[in-house]
């Protein structure tokens, strides 16, 4: 009973987190190409 | 011509470009796309402010007094008249179907009120002993409800197959 609401909730949360994580990694890759290695602090 | 990138500290260039060189640091006109982007961003902030104002209006009108308990609603019966409000109480008897209306009694602080609900059925959690919030108005001694919400408790009990007490 109520499995539909539960599953939609879990898909929204973990699907949303997955999509956001992928977009974050892509933003990082794209930006790193524009920044000289000596300016990349806090990256390790 | 000097080599600008050779300078180790670009911040110094803004103030000390050289003894005889005057660097123009005044802002130049934004290109069209940047202007549009800027306008769009200010519009977003404006729209968000409107949304926030709308929510605050709801907070000040609807959310501040979300409901009256049965005893408060009875005490304010004359003042409330026929205006719409929400009443909260615990269901004390099984609902009866009278003329298409769901009729039952709710109680709070030793006061009781009869609710006549006409509208969508409440959620499956509705049962005797559970608190409900009904939206409607006084009609004489009874409360005419158009919407019935179930207020579930903060207690959670596992429904184990080996429970000694059967589920309701």
């Amino acid at each position, binding site marked *: *009973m109520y*499995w539909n*609401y*539960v599953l939609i*909730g*879990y898909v*929204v*949360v*973990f699907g949303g*987190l997955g999509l956001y*994580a992928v977009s*974050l*990694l*892509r*933003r*990082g*890759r*794209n*930006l790193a190409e524009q*920044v000289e290695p000596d*300016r*990349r602090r806090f*990256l*390790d | *011509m*000097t080599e*600008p990138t050779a300078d180790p500290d*670009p911040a110094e*260039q803004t103030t000390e*470009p050289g003894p005889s060189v*005057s*660097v123009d*640091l005044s802002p130049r006109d934004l290109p069209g796309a*940047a202007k549009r982007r800027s306008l769009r*961003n*200010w519009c977003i*902030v404006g729209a*968000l402010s409107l949304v926030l104002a709308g929510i*605050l209006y709801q*907070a000040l009108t*609807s*959310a501040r*007094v*979300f409901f*009256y308990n049965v005893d408060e609603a009875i005490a304010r019966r004359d003042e409330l008249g026929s205006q719409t409000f929400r009443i909260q109480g615990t269901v004390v008897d099984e609902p009866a179907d009278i003329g298409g209306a769901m009729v039952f009694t709710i109680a709070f602080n030793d006061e009781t009120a009869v609710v006549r609900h006409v509208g*969508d059925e409440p*959620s*499956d*959690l509705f*049962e005797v002993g559970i608190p409900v*919030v009904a939206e409607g108005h006084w009609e004489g001694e009874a409360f005419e409800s158009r919407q019935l*919400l*179930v207020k579930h408790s*903060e*207690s*959670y*009990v*596992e*429904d*184990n197959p080996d429970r000694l007490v059967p589920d309701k």
Partner: protein
Amino acid sequence: MSPPTSTGPAATPTGSKLTRVLGSLSLAFLAIFLLFGLMLSPPEVSQREAVRLFYIHVPSAVIALYLAFGLTAVGSVVYLRKRSTFWDLLAWSAAEIGVLFCAFTLVTGMLWGRPTWGVFWKWDPRLTSTAISFVLFIGYLAVRQLDLTPEARSSRAAVLGIIGFLNTIVVRFSVSWWQSLHQGTTLNPVDTQMDGLHLLSFFLGFATLALVFSWLLVHRFRVAWLAHQAGEAGLDRALAERRAEATGRTV
């Protein structure tokens, strides 16, 4: 947004040993949590399966309103006092992830409200104050995109970040200050109203989402740092061009 040019951990500039440890722990906890949250924990006596939304709704709310927006407030205060780029970018990063978790709080709350209350939404004090937090922090993110000087942008955002976090106090006490449709506190340290596998599943859900939040925060901060550095490099280039122009005029 262009696709990544290559794949694998070595090609992730914002990845490091720390994020790989956090990421691995997040995935391990996620697997265990899904097992308990969706399969091993029993239904609740009256709410049946809807209780499973508790395991993601409450952690999302705690992480968004206290952890993320709290971090934004701390970063904002430190920025206003010390003008520290680090804290400014940390505040921004936490706010962005906080908005995401706040959205999860609202969505899972609505999905939970329909089968239990009978409606997706009501202008109840807890729901309304949470919606105000959500809009305030979307406003924070919008201010960070405004066409202002970087200092003005950061300062205005910092003030909004502090105000936004103050609203968390209103959210916290809304169910006791006003009469509310929303339930009261279940996980009261003195008298917890949940036990057994329900409580274990909740803690697993909280641990999973807290780990994911930490992983995202490190990556988001590094993205913000790279963007800041890219902006600085752009400014350097622009200054160099102006300087070259000026030198050209005077020659």
